[in-house]
């Protein structure tokens, strides 16, 4: 990145973050909440980009990581009174990490389509378990709980307002982006990208490809889990629908729409998707099957815009 590029990049970054900080202060509550939700789905999509865009593995199982983050947070929030934010984060991340370690261990032995199908099947296993284990998970109805307060319990806490919740989510999403960007530019990230470009050669050079893939899946799963925790905290419930593979499918759609291998592209994809859904719902009513036009748009993007909406910026964003 030249110095000029750097200035443009960080200026753009600063402007967008500043706009997102101001958003809850100027937007009506409905839209402010909408932006928060975009950030959470964007984080899920961004985590999946680590695999799709940087390692060349399409995961159809991110709903498992997201869902376990959600149910992990739910467990912490229901067990401890008063509900504890730090504990919710810890439980959610541990849950997601455990599941992603398990999935990573098995699924990374396979490539391409086989990897995609295996991750899909794994996420369905967790879905079936959560859906049928009613005594623990609440089954079909899921679990609902109170929202924890912001702060460190015992020292200083303050209840979340819509604004502070938004800023909290924003801080974590921006932090995740910077961290993931850093990791993808590190030697580790370079190895992942070389696996994407040419796996046999990467192996021939002497890198333990399988181990790198396992770490990549776990890394990706951890951030998906974080998104799950944030969603649970925002919405005060955990439901099996969020472990269902359609969520994984949406994460993939966000990626394809926004542009894989850019980290921010998936957030843009999530925003586009959710805005289109919202717009279609407002134009044609709540009952409108918005997934029909969105499905057509999705297919059109795959065929005519394989790099996604931000594809033209991909090289530049990765400098």
């Amino acid at each position, binding site marked *: 990145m030249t110095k000029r590029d750097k200035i443009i990049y960080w200026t753009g970054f600063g402007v967008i973050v500043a706009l997102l900080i101001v958003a809850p202060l100027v937007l009506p509550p409905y839209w402010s909440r909408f932006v928060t939700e975009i950030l959470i789905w964007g984080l899920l999509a961004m985590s999946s980009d680590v695999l799709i865009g940087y390692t060349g593995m399409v995961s159809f199982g991110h709903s498992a990581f997201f869902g376990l983050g959600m149910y992990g947070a739910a467990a912490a929030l229901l067990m401890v009174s008063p509900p504890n934010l730090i504990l919710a984060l810890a439980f959610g991340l541990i849950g997601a990490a455990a599941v992603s370690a398990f999935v990573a261990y*098995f699924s990374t032995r396979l490539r391409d389509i086989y990897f995609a199908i*295996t991750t899909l099947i794994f996420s369905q296993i967790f879905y079936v378990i959560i859906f049928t284990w009613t005594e623990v998970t609440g089954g079909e109805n899921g679990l609902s709980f109170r929202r924890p307060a912001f702060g460190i319990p015992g020292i200083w806490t303050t209840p979340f307002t819509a604004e502070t919740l938004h800023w909290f989510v924003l801080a974590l999403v921006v932090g995740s982006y910077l961290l993931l960007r850093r990791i993808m530019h590190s030697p580790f990230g370079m190895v992942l990208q070389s696996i994407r470009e040419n796996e046999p050669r990467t192996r021939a050079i002497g890198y333990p490809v399988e181990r790198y893939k396992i770490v990549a899946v776990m890394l990706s799963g951890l951030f998906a889990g974080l998104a799950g925790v944030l969603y649970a905290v925002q919405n005060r419930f955990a439901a099996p629908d969020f472990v269902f593979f359609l969520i994984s499918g949406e994460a993939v759609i966000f990626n394809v729409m926004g542009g894989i291998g850019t980290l921010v592209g998936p957030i843009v994809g999530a925003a586009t998707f959710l805005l289109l859904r919202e717009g279609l719902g407002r134009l044609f009513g709540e009952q409108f099957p918005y997934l029909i036009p969105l499905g*057509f748009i999705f*297919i059109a993007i795959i065929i005519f815009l394989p790099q996604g909406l931000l594809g033209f910026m991909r090289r530049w964003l990765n400098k």
Partner: protein
Amino acid sequence: MASVLTFFTEFPFELFVIQTLNGIVTGMILALIASGLTLIFGIMDVVNFAHGELFMLGAYMGVIVLSTTGSFWLALILATLIVALFGAAMQIVTLRPLVGRDPLTTILATFGVSLILQNYALWQFGPVARKINEPYTGHFNLFYLEYPWYRLVIAGLSAALIGGFWLFLKHGKFGIWIRATMQDRVMAQAMGIPVPLVHTAAFAIGAGMAAASGVLFGPLVGVNHTMGLDWVLKAFIVVVVGGMGNLGGSIAAAIFISLLESYAAIWVSPAQAVIVSFIVLIFTLLFRPTGLFVPTPK
């Protein structure tokens, strides 16, 4: 030891026989769906995510034709043909432009199609399940159950369709074209075989087979917009366990997995019995990723 003994004394043999029969019936339906999926994967490396929705679409077409004409058999034939045509159109519009791209893009595109079809069905037909009446309503006594003849008819018809498909592949010009294209697309084209046409036709055949199984299966469970989802997951498992692109393996795997799930349903709820097939899949992928029912590659 004692517990083993109680297992045997309390082993529900009658239920076991019934479940064997049920397993074979669903196994044949699954084999019919999976054959189409295998054909499509084997010939063009496309994992057709929308296959379950083609199954569902077939069932709905069956409902429509049945309600206007009153003939189950006409419904079966027309639904198969209509969905086959739809499949051909779908292949031309969404998959042909992706030829030469990463095969994973085809999963994404067909996933898009499945979203569209599923939501279209919900929008058009509503969430309430529709009913297809069985063409045969007779029963026979099986222990304490009245077992419907129609279930055996399904198994027989599915077997006949699969057998017909196999004969079609084995004999005749078009069968040779399909098999040659499956083995070596490039060389098939160099031999003058119109590969793009063969791809479209194979997709149409696979879609038609899915639709036929949808109509056949409709009377057992009712027809609704989510019925494709369970089946496509099962069919994926079958196709992988059977060895991707291997027809005989898929059929064996379909029956094997359906039997396992049927037996598991003796002890756990059907929703949990699904996990058995997931476990079979995982073990297959770990120990024999080329498939359980194919000879070890030399």
